[in-house]
């Protein structure tokens, strides 16, 4: 791949939902092929919007986004890179069972009929939700739905996975198991993952690089390389130390500096 250093290439991105108030402004960042990138930013700053733009469902006001050298957005052809997206909300079809929800995207991704069922079984197993195979999403808990959404994104085995706070609705123990599995899965594949989270430790545990955004409208504030060798341990004291440093580092920028009192800075 010629673009390996900038597999996902975001340049001068401006996104606005109403055409007036910007949600993302002049954001540039690059994600390398096979990289696990985490995105941190204060609530409402535009993280989900960034993923929306990368996936092509939101048209930027200006700026460019390319994946593997191809522009994303409307008219994304069949030859463009397949994307799995775990939305912040589950976005499952309520009138289809868990298995049918996954089967629909598998078929759309061109998976052969014979492979559909085994694939579904495999990923449901991985996310510990096999017993809900034939249940409707509205009968599941929030965390169970979120795991179905993750299974759906991973099952098409896409080159790029976008994840928007995928573990935020899970209990801590389940979340840890899931994080470990995701880390293992990523190491075995060469998928490129962009992972939005509010948990700094989660970002440190999973990612090779962390992109820190500013308050909304989001710009890139800083990029942090996580050089702790894998496999990592969630309780690793080095992660604790890095976490404290990052909190210290963003405090000012996110509007909680010494001079700004309790109010977020404008």
């Amino acid at each position, binding site marked *: 791949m010629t673009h390996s250093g900038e597999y996902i290439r975001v340049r001068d991105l401006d996104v606005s939902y109403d055409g007036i108030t910007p949600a993302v402004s002049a954001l540039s960042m690059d994600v390398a092929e096979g990289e696990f990138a985490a995105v941190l930013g204060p609530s409402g700053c535009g993280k989900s919007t960034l993923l929306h733009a990368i996936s092509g469902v939101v048209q930027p006001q200006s700026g460019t986004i390319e994946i593997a050298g191809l522009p994303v957005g409307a008219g994304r052809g069949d030859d463009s890179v397949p*994307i799995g997206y775990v939305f912040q909300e589950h976005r499952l079809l309520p009138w*289809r069972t868990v298995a049918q929800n996954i089967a629909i995207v598998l078929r759309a991704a061109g998976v052969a009929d014979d492979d559909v069922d085994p694939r579904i079984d495999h990923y449901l197993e991985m996310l510990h939700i096999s017993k809900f195979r034939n249940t409707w999403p509205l009968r599941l808990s929030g965390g169970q739905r979120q795991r179905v959404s993750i299974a759906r994104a991973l099952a098409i085995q896409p080159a790029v996975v976008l994840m928007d706070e995928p573990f935020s609705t899970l209990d801590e123990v389940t979340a840890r198991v899931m994080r470990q599995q995701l880390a293992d899965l990523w190491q075995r594949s060469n998928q490129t993952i962009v992972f939005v989270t509010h948990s700094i430790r989660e970002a440190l545990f999973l990612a090779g690089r962390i992109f820190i955004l500013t308050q909304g409208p989001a710009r890139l504030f800083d990029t942090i390389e996580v050089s702790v060798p894998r496999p990592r341990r969630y309780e690793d004291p080095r992660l604790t130390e890095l976490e404290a440093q990052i909190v210290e580092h963003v405090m000012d920028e996110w509007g909680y500096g010494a001079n700004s009192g309790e109010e977020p800075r404008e």
Partner: protein
Amino acid sequence: MTTEQVVSLRQITGGRLQRFQAFTVASLLALAVWQLATLISDGWVPSLWRIMEALGEDASTASIYTDMWITLRRIFVTFAAATSIGIGLGVAMGLNRRVMAFFRPIVVMGLAVPDVVYIIVAILVLGTEESSGLIAMVLALIPFVVNIVVGGVGARDPGLDEMSAVYRLRRLRYLVDVVGWQVSPSLIVATRTCFAFAWKLIVLVEALSQPRGIGAQIYYSFRLLRPDHMIARALLFIVVLRLVEAIIFAPVEKRFLGWMR
């Protein structure tokens, strides 16, 4: 029009006994008021007794069933045409801005034209054949269906559209599995409304232009100054319509709306 609420709101509450009670009270009260009207109007309003007699007479003539069958067939033909065209157009308008921009004024005008005008114009242009009245009905019904369906399509969850785009669902898949299911409640409202309005309109069409059919019979009795038969025939056909609704619409609705519960 507000018939949307007809389906969602008219759920009679209470148990079997209470409903029976209400039905009895409603019927008795209506009968009493009717009888009073008969007395006051000295004979212009037919008495219950005469209506009962007419009912017995009509129900035992074979030709009335032929008329009912003719009218039912007409209702079904226009209903099928109007719902399929209306749903297709409504979905296209709801999904595509250009289609919406083009058809919106036509639908607004279509809603404003009185039913009588459709029918008279159709008779003038196409003659008094059966088909001209039916075409007029279809034209009069389509705007209602479109209006309801457009509302349903417009209220769909944009999140699921985005999901479908990311996972590149094929067009047909998207239409059936994503749009279709979200729109299904409003499709049911649309078909119900269309059916109810088709019945209201067919009476007019048949009265104005047809020799056979229940509407023609009703109008015929009117011209012969036989209000008792007029009412009896309308009542008989209303019973048939209720049966059709209970047999066809209720089960379909149950099946389609099952996932919501």
